[in-house]
């Protein structure tokens, strides 16, 4: 199993104002598997991704990545894990506006233990944005920026891609296209994909979609 989550809980604050945001008895993701978790905004989906990426520690339970419990790793070890094994795509794409397309993608290789710079060109070509390589990202359309974010997430050849609301700024047609592209590229790269979204078009594209409100027993706002 690539990801295995057991009895996971994340709570903020302390009694009596303690607020449980994520309460997940079990969740698994196999290598190469693609899953979309859909649910309304503000219900802890992003928090769940932060737990899986090692950016947040749970208050209870375990997150296993390829059998290794990541919440017990040191911060530096979790940073290394993100640099080499996990690609992240965020709502709003989080691109650096003053860098070019190529520089944004190369950023992910700066901290990679075994970077392969030739993958930058390959991915830009695959995503159809190689001609924009020298352009600043703020000259691109939303769709093109999303492609840059996908390229950056995949350039380190990760085992897992975590996508947080990847279609937030797109209309239904473009969102569908973006989901398709994400699925295709992740499959080509042999990376597992976990997308969390409130966008119901994901159900049309992903073979495996799960309902967050069914998975998560917590009902507090995140």
């Amino acid at each position, binding site marked *: 199993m690539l990801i295995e989550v057991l009895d996971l809980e994340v709570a903020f604050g302390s009694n009596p104002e303690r607020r449980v945001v994520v309460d997940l008895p079990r969740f698994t993701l196999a290598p190469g598997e693609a899953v979309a978790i859909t649910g309304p905004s503000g219900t802890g989906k*992003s*928090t769940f991704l*932060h737990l899986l*990426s090692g*950016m*947040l520690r749970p208050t209870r339970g375990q997150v296993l990545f390829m059998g290794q419990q990541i919440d017990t790793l040191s*911060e*530096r070890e979790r*940073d*290394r*894990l*993100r*640099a*080499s094994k996990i690609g*992240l795509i*965020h*709502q*709003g794409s*989080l*691109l*650096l506006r*003053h*860098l070019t397309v190529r*520089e944004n993608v*190369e*950023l*992910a*290789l*700066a*901290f*990679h233990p075994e*970077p392969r710079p030739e993958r930058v060109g390959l991915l830009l070509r695959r995503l159809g944005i190689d001609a924009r390589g020298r352009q600043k990202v703020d000259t691109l359309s939303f769709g093109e920026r999303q492609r840059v974010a996908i390229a*950056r997430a995949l350039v*380190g050849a990760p085992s897992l891609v975590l996508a947080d609301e990847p279609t937030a700024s797109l209309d239904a047609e473009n969102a569908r296209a973006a989901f398709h592209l994400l699925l295709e590229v992740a499959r080509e790269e042999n990376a597992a994909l976990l997308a969390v979204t409130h966008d119901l078009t994901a159900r049309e594209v992903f073979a495996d979609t799960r309902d967050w409100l069914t998975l998560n027993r917590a009902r507090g706002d995140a």
Partner: protein
Amino acid sequence: MNARVLKTLFLLLVRDAGRRKLPLAIAILAAGLGGALVLSTIAAGARARSAFNAAGAGFDAVLAARSSPLQCVLSGIFHLEPFIANLPWDFYVRMADDPRIEVAIPIAGGDSYEGIPILGTDAALFEVAGEPERWRLSRNSRLFDPLRREAVIGSVAAAETGLNLGDHFHPAHGPEEGGEEHDDEYLVVGVMEPTGSPADRVIWIPLEGVLRMSGHMLQSPDGAYAPDPDEEIPDDMMQVSAVLLRVRDTSSGFSLDQEWNRDGRDATFAWPVTRLVASVVQRLGWVEAVLRALSWFTVLAGFGFLFAIVHHSLRERRGELATLRTVGAPRSVVISIPFLEGAVFGALAGLVAYALHHVILVIVARYVRSETGLDLSGGGFDPTYVTVAALFPLCGGLIGLLAGLGAYRWQPTELLRRSG
């Protein structure tokens, strides 16, 4: 931190700096200007002390009319003050014959040309003056004939008046510009090579030229006396404004000091010149200290501004920091960004300080030279440069660290939330 990470950090630095050119340039210039003022006050102070000490041109004492020793030095050595009265010729003779005196040269003043003092002297001055190098005349120049209306001019005097070899001029009465012109016409026969001393800002003529200048009246016990052009001036009518002296040794100096200043009241024996000059410099030391303090405040203001820019920039760049954390950048990289920015901007301010201080020194040296003849240019390596070279990037780095402390504490999830 490997080369790839460093390259990335520099890329982020350059691109972000490109977006804040104007405030950054102002902050760097402000800190650099402060640094330049600090360096300039230190370097100019050191050069001035050295130039003042060398200004005596090998003379270590002055005998002049009764006044303060400092007044004697300012008028006899620096030619910055007019002589307050003349001395009888006999005083010069006594000094010249005194075995405790190695060299005695008479000078007489009171006239000027375009604000440049005209001093009468003995041609022997040019054989003994100058330390460590003797004064030299430029090409095709010669010394004045003591019996003719001829002049040798200092290099600054030549530059300021435009006088050159073969030119004629009329001296004006009094030390200030605009005095009444004398009828006597003088011919420039020599231009001195620069000496870096106050002598560069003097027009030298024969001693008798001053005494016989039209309109000058010599004082004698029998009343005012205007010398006849065809007859020799009797010794008891001869006068000098001061006598430049080289004392044989320290004990001679003490002995002469006792004789002229404590036991006698006829004239002032100003000795040793270097100590008197040092006392002036020391008295002006507070000015240098105040200037230096103000300069450091300017540096502080510049660095304060730099701090504000880096701090504000980090807050604006939470998204950038969040991105870096999501791609695996450790906290050390997050704090390295403001540190590197501060250090680089501090180093740039240091470079600006170094360059600007040279400009300031050139301007100050030109002004001082035109006003006093003293040469403040040149000057060797100053250890302060090393201090500034190390201090500026270090201070920049420190304020960067300070500005980045908050960002260092931010969790990646918090960065994502704040940048969202």
